[in-house]
């Protein structure tokens, strides 16, 4: 296992500019091997531990691959494999504009960091890998550093990531320190933390700190603020990885701490995770609807999907705390399945957005339109991503959301009336989320790829090269495969659920055969993606053939223009107008500034020549939570700044007073 990760390091020497091919090709191979290794370790249920005698004296690094890290190794490795193939073509777009050396170097470091995070088996090494991942992704966000917005986004990302890292550090401190009463350093390994028995209040403290820290990385609302800033400005292959898998390392952290290190907890922990998950899901998709920057829209959808994953995990925690291991296994598998699915379709969508960006140099959807004619392949792959993320059958997003609904529907078995009444409302919010996601992706795909082109560079748009298409094709196939063969996937994941929560559902999930997914029992609920897919396909083909038995002519004609002289591309619905009804209905959640100006016309007051429409939609959390903090820190730094006089005598007095104070107190 370890060799694979070490195999990544030789890339660092491949610093020649035109060796993108080699660098990303080797990265692809390394990720592929990591995914295979993870796959086998989950399938065989093996556990390997390695202790590396490097690092600080007496504090060797511990590495371990078990079922959970194996699973996340597959998630990270698979998408990294696809994205690395894609990058071969994508990064060539930067050639001639800037040096790609540091992009390659940090890309490889970033991958290595993510692999090491899931493999780490002690707190020290975990945090080192975590920081390696955070720092290298900071530099990747900063890649096109001449733009102000990139520098601002990268800085914001760095701040939030480190606030989170501090919380994780403190959480591990609580977990490790309590086992020995803060007297030694030997207990920084995860093994020691597993063996420890924590008093409930300290366990709660550790959980809350860890949840806060990992939430900052995952972009859970209200800590999501960096995500829509950083993801759009990073190069698209990096955004695919950041959104697709880097956020998942935070999910890994939450699952690891809760189900593996702490293990016993009250139900309200689960309820907390569930509530934050629901808020993130609903608010994330609503914010996404308001965006017209394609990559920003996708970034907000990551917030939504992290919310959906947390819903599954939160339900699993609630079921576990009531010792209902079967249902806990169902909910946990739903959450982890969605982790895998989100990696695939979000990676695919960011790669598609990258292709669009590559071809048009445009992120603003209002300048796109009609791209399906210029880039047919990209359009098909992007459409598959859209269907998957909107949770529509037969693709993968639906399977995991359906499993989550089943977990919700089984919640009446809980022995608590309060939860019985409240949890169904969560299911309704999830339904709202997935329906809004469908609306959002009709908008994203419709405005970007369909209709007439709105922009100015009609002739120059071109389809992308083979490597970019291959990367997207593989991810699209993964979306379809995960959607059609869920029973195999669940069979493979089952040992993981059994190890973490003690229940298994694989036997009942394929009770009717591999074609039917029946999570608890066949009478309870069933879904067969292969049958639905084949059935619909058969009817479509038969109808098509029947209707084309008679040679019928298709006449192409210009659009009906309702009697106006000419239809222009500006008469189409735009992204902003598409979202208008929902903006009005859910407007109270945003701070919206709408401004219409209509200069008086020279010819006639009733027929204005032009109308200016200005719309600004802002995140309320920015003004509620972040602006006060920013203001306070500026105020504080101004106060402290007064101490800086710039005269050496005054600084000597400061030193003198400090020494005096220290002498008095440390006598």
């Amino acid at each position, binding site marked *: 296992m370890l060799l694979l990760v070490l195999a990544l390091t030789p890339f660092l020497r491949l610093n020649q500019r035109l060796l993108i091919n080699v660098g990303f090709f080797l990265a692809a191979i390394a990720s592929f091997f990591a995914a295979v290794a993870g796959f086998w370790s989950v399938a065989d249920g093996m556990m390997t531990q390695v202790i590396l005698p490097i690092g600080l004296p007496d504090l060797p690094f511990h590495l371990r691959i078990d079922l959970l890290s194996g699973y996340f190794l597959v998630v990270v490795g698979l998408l990294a494999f696809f994205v690395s193939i894609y990058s071969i073509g994508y990064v060539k777009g930067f050639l001639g504009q800037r040096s790609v050396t540091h992009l390659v170097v940090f890309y490889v470091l970033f991958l290595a960091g993510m692999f090491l995070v899931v493999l780490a088996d002690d707190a020290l090494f975990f945090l080192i890998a975590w920081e390696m991942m955070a720092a290298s992704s900071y530099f990747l966000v900063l890649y096109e550093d001449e733009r102000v917005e990139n520098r601002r986004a990268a800085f914001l990302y760095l701040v939030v990531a480190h606030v989170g890292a501090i919380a994780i550090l403190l959480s591990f401190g609580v977990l490790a320190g309590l086992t020995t009463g803060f007297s030694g350093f030997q207990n920084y390994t995860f093994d020691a933390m597993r063996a420890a028995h924590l008093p409930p209040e300290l366990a709660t403290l550790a959980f809350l700190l860890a949840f806060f820290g990992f939430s900052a990385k995952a972009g859970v609302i209200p800590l999501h603020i960096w995500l829509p800033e950083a993801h759009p400005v990073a190069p698209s292959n990096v955004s695919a990885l950041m959104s697709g898998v880097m956020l998942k390392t935070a999910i890994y952290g939450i699952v690891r701490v809760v189900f593996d290190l702490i293990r016993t907890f009250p139900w309200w922990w689960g309820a907390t995770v569930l509530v934050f998950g629901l808020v993130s899901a609903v608010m994330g998709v609503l914010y996404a609807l308001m965006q017209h920057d394609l990559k920003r829209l996708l970034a907000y959808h990551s917030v939504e999907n992290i919310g959906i994953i947390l819903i599954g995990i939160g339900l699993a925690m609630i079921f576990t705390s009531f010792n209902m291991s079967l249902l806990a296994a169902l909910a946990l598998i739903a959450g982890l399945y969605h982790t895998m699915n989100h990696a695939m379709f979000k990676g695919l969508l960011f790669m598609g957005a990258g292709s669009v960006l590559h071809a048009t140099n445009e992120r603003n959807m209002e300048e796109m*339109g009609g791209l399906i*004619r210029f880039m047919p392949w990209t359009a098909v792959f992007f459409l598959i991503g859209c*269907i998957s993320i909107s949770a*529509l*059958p037969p693709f993968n997003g*639906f399977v995991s959301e*359906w499993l989550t*609904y089943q977990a919700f*529907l089984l919640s*009446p078995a809980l022995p608590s009336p309060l939860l019985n*009444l409240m949890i*169904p409302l969560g*299911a*309704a919010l*999830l339904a*709202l989320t*997935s*329906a*809004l996601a*469908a*609306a959002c*992706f*009709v*908008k994203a*795909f*419709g405005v970007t790829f*369909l*209709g*007439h082109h709105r922009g100015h560079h009609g002739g120059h748009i071109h389809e992308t090269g083979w490597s970019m298409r291959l990367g997207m094709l593989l991810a699209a196939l993964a979306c379809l495969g995960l959607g059609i063969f869920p029973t195999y996937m669940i069979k493979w994941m089952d040992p993981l659920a059994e190890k973490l929560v003690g229940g298994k559902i694989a036997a009942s999930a394929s009770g009717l055969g591999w074609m*039917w997914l029946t999570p608890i029992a*066949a*009478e*309870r*609920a*069933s*879904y067969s993606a292969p049958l*639905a897919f084949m*059935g619909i*396909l058969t*009817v*479509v083909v038969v109808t*098509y053939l029947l*209707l084309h038995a008679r040679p*019928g*002519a*298709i*006449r*192409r*004609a210009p*659009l009906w223009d309702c009697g106006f002289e000419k*239809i222009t*591309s500006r*008469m189409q*619905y735009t992204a902003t*107008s*598409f979202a208008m*009804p*929902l903006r*009005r*209905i859910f407007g109270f959640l945003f701070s919206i500034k709408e401004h219409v100006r209509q200069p008086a016309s020279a010819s006639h007051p009733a027929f204005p020549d032009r109308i200016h429409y200005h719309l600004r939609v802002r995140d309320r959390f920015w003004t509620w939570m972040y602006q006060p903090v920013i203001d306070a820190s500026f105020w504080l730094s101004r106060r402290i700044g007064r101490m800086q006089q710039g005269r050496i005598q005054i600084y000597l007095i400061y030193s003198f007073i400090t020494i005096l104070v220290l002498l008095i107190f440390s006598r």
Partner: protein
Amino acid sequence: MSIDPFIIEILQVAALLIVAPVFTGWIKMVKCWFQGRTSPSLFQPWRDILKLFSKDVTLAENASWIFRFTPYLVFGISVMAGGIIPILSMDLPLSATADVIALVALFSIARFFTALAGMDIGTAFGGMGASREMTIASLAEPAMLMAVFAVSLVGKSTSLSQMAIVISEGHSLLRPSLVFALLAFILITLAETGRIPVDNPATHLELTMIHEAMILEYSGRHLALIEWASMMKLFLFAVLGIASFVPWGIPRNGELFSVAIALLVLLFKLAGIGVVLVLIETGLAKMRIFRITEFLGSAFLFATIGMMSYFMLE
């Protein structure tokens, strides 16, 4: 004598394909009676469909493959859904293909593609229809899920056949949870199938169209498929309501006699549903689009009350 379940499956899909336009014709007929007009024949929708099939297709110049693929997909999904809902028998080979939630998701994918087809041409109407349709759908979805939740509490399942079996074995029609869920379901059906007061299937007035705006550019066989599919959708929502709330008369297995009875009972129930629908449609005016929030909000509220009353009263 017992019929093979596969034959019943085929019979059921055939019944769906044939009866759905007649059901729409029946609704139009009753509506004309209520409004004191002379009605068209019961089979007028059939004639319209056949006429459209014999016409050539006129396609907009910039229509992509999505525009041409959508009618087939929408039609295919409706036929598939007809094989899943128990209409003539509860013992169907396809009934395990999807439970209620997956069935609703199948309808969602049809809507997703219809909305995309609306945007494909690049006219203002298509985009307007797509935007409104997706807005209404996203408000209807939570209410629908809540109604499913309430019914599945009673039926202990989300599988349609299983729900129908459990509810037909129950004694009373007046379980409070089911009554509230039924109210919610009726409101949702009006929204999902585009009936008054949410949408008006008979209008082509520019600013009030929703569903019609998306399919405005279709012609010939494409239009025929879409029209047929939307008639089937109305029919399917009716039989979905029958299977989950009044499943009496649907036989457990495929006895020849009981299947024949089931067909008669079905026609009788559909006639009743048609009258109820006409009463609602003639009694109400079409709503402003931003009032639909309240309309579907009350559907959600009914469903939630249904669920709570299960926990409190039953």
